[in-house]
């Protein structure tokens, strides 16, 4: 047998056993019923999927979508100027890139916790505002959707900066110069030339931010305090406290379906662009 | 004597096209043999089939009489010098040269390596890594690496293509001298006819997957058997089916006798190339011809009436 066949075998085994098999189990569970003691048993049913259309769960889904969308847009707005700055920097580009990537490389948990530390009632921000007399009782900055949004944006911002920067780097520098030569002022050049030309980077960044935000669990649990229920939290609760594995599996399958569709759509678009 | 390398009716198909349409070659031991042709003619494919990187669709590759079609590259006693040299970046020059000896478990590694490095003129530079060597030095390492294994045939895939023109000329004579010294059969692939002519004992001109002609450099140049070979080896004037090379073509005010052929013609252009003039004339039949005229001869003006002449013995007649 060829060497490469031996080499690829362990990965096949691992992916089959620890990725495909679990997935298949969850798929099966999504069509089964919750047992009295929280187990999974027959009969086979479509009930779990029907439940997804309940108002309660649709709201959760919509909320997740909205949260992910807003986070993505915010990341885009915040990231683009920095990406532009770095691409136009005459030197030390690498330094700036390192500065952007450095927080990303540290623990995601720590970075999310940092906002917990800053936003809570006895956190730094409230203490500071109270000290200088602006407020007299702490602001409820934490355990709401705003905090979750902040945590998401903060966590995934570098994912938006890099693809946009990569696209801007490849931009032909004579194009903005030509625009200026033809009479366009800086803001016009930016919005009519540079931004449209960096479309592929923007879309790549959007996908890289939107997908993890859609399925987020840690940020919404830690910073949302259990009050902001997103799809990820729903899945987790079904598998722990609510002990409704079949329903949790159905929600997971829905989430997987959405994510797969998004990625597939993105890849299709990429290959269309290339051909 | 038995040829050291033979290919018989070698065919290579790829999905969509046929790279080799059944070629046969016989390469004598100790010779410098070149495969010459334009890109896509199948010369590199032939080399790769001999080296063992690919298997033929049909036909045979024989080394010292043995059929080696199904043998892996490391089971054949041939060695390749790649166009990109393919030096191992993590090893020094010495490490590269040692590599094959170590894999074969040969003895006297240090001695053999020292000999090879001296042969290619890299003494003193063997501790450098490829990144620290110039293009020419890298090529020498590639040569040493292959030669140290004393292969039956050394295969060279356009070895001079990556060098700049001055270095190329110098390397040509060095390669030729090296081959004579070690006595190993060299099989060289190139698209540069000057290279093939200057270095080879014999060469095969290839085109679109088949061999057009095999012979010595003089044979191929002076007595090409097809229009393609004539045209590939140098410029040719085709006048009424007869071929004459510009350097054998003379321009004069008067017609020549004494056995030469002469025809009246009109000068259409005269280009000064530094070492000679290229005079372009149109003949009465309407055909154009180029003559290479020595710098010291009189300058011909556009529109002048002249005579174009040549010796019949210089004529090229093809099938």
């Amino acid at each position: 047998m060829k060497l490469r066949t031996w080499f690829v075998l362990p990965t096949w085994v691992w992916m089959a056993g620890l990725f495909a098999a679990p997935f298949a189990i969850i798929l099966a569970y999504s069509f089964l019923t919750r047992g009295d003691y929280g187990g999974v048993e027959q009969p086979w049913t479509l009930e779990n999927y029907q439940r997804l259309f309940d108002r309660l769960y649709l709201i959760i889904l919509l909320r997740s979508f909205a949260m992910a969308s807003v986070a993505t847009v915010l990341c885009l707005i915040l990231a683009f100027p920095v990406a532009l700055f770095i691409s136009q920097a005459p030197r030390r580009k690498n330094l700036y890139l390192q500065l952007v990537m450095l927080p990303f490389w540290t623990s995601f948990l720590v970075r999310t916790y940092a906002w917990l530390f800053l936003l809570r009632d006895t956190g730094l921000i409230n203490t500071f505002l109270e000290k200088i007399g602006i407020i007299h009782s702490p602001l409820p900055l934490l355990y709401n959707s705003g905090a979750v949004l902040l945590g998401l944006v903060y966590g995934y911002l570098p994912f938006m900066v890099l693809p946009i920067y990569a696209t801007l780097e490849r931009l032909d520098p004579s194009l903005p110069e030509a625009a200026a030569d033809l009479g366009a002022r800086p803001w016009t050049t930016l919005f009519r030339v540079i931004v449209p030309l960096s479309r592929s980077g923007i879309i790549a960044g959007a996908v890289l931010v939107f997908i993890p935000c859609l399925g987020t669990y840690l940020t919404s649990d830690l910073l949302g305090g259990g009050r902001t229920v997103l799809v990820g939290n729903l899945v987790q609760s079904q598998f722990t406290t609510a002990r409704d594995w079949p329903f949790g599996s159905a929600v997971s399958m829905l989430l997987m379906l959405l994510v797969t569709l998004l990625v597939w759509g993105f890849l299709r678009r990429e290959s269309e662009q290339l051909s | 004597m038995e040829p050291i390398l033979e290919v018989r009716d070698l065919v290579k198909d790829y999905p969509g096209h046929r790279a080799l349409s059944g070629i046969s070659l016989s390469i004598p031991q100790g010779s410098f043999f070149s495969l010459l042709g334009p890109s896509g003619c199948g010369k590199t494919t032939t080399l790769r089939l001999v080296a063992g990187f690919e298997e033929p669709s049909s036909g045979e590759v024989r080394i010292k009489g043995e059929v080696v079609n199904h043998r892996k590259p490391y089971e054949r006693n041939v060695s390749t010098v790649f166009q990109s040299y393919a030096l191992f970046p993590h090893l020094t020059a010495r490490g590269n040269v040692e590599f094959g000896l170590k894999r074969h478990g040969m003895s006297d590694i240090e001695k053999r390596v020292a000999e090879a490095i001296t042969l290619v003129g890299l003494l003193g530079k063997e501790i450098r890594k490829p990144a620290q060597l110039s293009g020419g030095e890298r090529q020498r390492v590639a040569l040493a690496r292959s030669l140290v294994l004393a292969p039956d045939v050394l295969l060279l895939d356009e070895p001079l293509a990556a060098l700049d023109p001055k270095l190329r000329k110098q390397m040509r004579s060095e390669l030729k001298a090296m081959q004579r010294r070690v006595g190993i059969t060299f099989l060289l692939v190139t698209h540069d006819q000057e290279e093939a002519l200057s270095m080879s004992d014999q060469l095969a001109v290839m085109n679109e997957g088949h061999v057009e002609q095999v012979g010595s450099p003089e044979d191929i140049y002076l007595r090409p058997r097809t229009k393609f070979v004539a045209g590939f080896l140098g410029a040719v004037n085709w006048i009424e089916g007869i071929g004459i090379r510009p350097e054998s073509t003379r321009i004069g005010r008067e017609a020549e006798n004494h056995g030469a052929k002469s025809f009246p013609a009109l000068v259409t252009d005269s280009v000064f190339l530094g070492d000679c003039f290229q005079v372009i004339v149109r003949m009465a039949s309407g055909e154009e011809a180029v003559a290479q005229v020595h710098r010291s001869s009189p300058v011909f003006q556009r529109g002048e009436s002249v005579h174009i002449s040549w010796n019949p013995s210089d004529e090229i007649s093809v099938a």
Partner: protein
Amino acid sequence: MKRWLAVYAVGFFAFLHLPLLTLAVFSFNSSRFTVWEHFSLEWYRAIFRDPELVEATWNSVIVAVAATVIATVVGTMCAYALWKKKSRLLTGTLYLSLVTPEIVTGISLLALFQWMFRWLHWHLGLYTVILAHVAFSIAYVVIVISARLRTLSPSLEEAALDLGANEWGAFFYVILPALGPGIIAAALLALTVSFDDYVITSMVAGVDSQTLPMVIYAMARRGASPVINAISALITVFFGILIVISEQVREA
């Protein structure tokens, strides 16, 4: 406009780094409140006095090292095999494992292990965590190594074969050394991803196999404590060192 961009960039970098910096600064605050008292190493000492924390850290290290070694070996071999012959199915599966939300990966592995528990008497423990970590790390390794392989000339392998090495020799003596820095970068990536994982680990860890992120998370949910600040600062420094090493190796 250039000036505005520069001003914005400064603000941006401040926004990105200040939260972590304040976290680190207040880890040295003697008071447990966010009012500065005086410099103190008390919270750092508290870390080492807490047996739960120490054990969790040790578990995290074991898991990270084991998972990294396995994932790097398996992933490098896989990347090499894919370089020689593409497989859309495998590449697609690996990418899918990357975009799958962590919670989904976590619960699906939990379901698998519970099933194993019923039929093969498996229990959740440190080894289930390691298995899970390898599963999601392989894709990262494959990506890094594949990128590195693309920079290598295919003639390198042919040259090795030509000179007498067989397929394994070509891989071991030529490709592997040429990949060197890439392998280290991939390993460091796998290490950081594994060490930092909370979501998946929390679903598949046994009761007595807590990792550091799990302990930190539990503490954070109970209410913030300066001890977490101290741990966070240490983790950040640790990861920072890993990045510096990674960069140095890449330069070489």
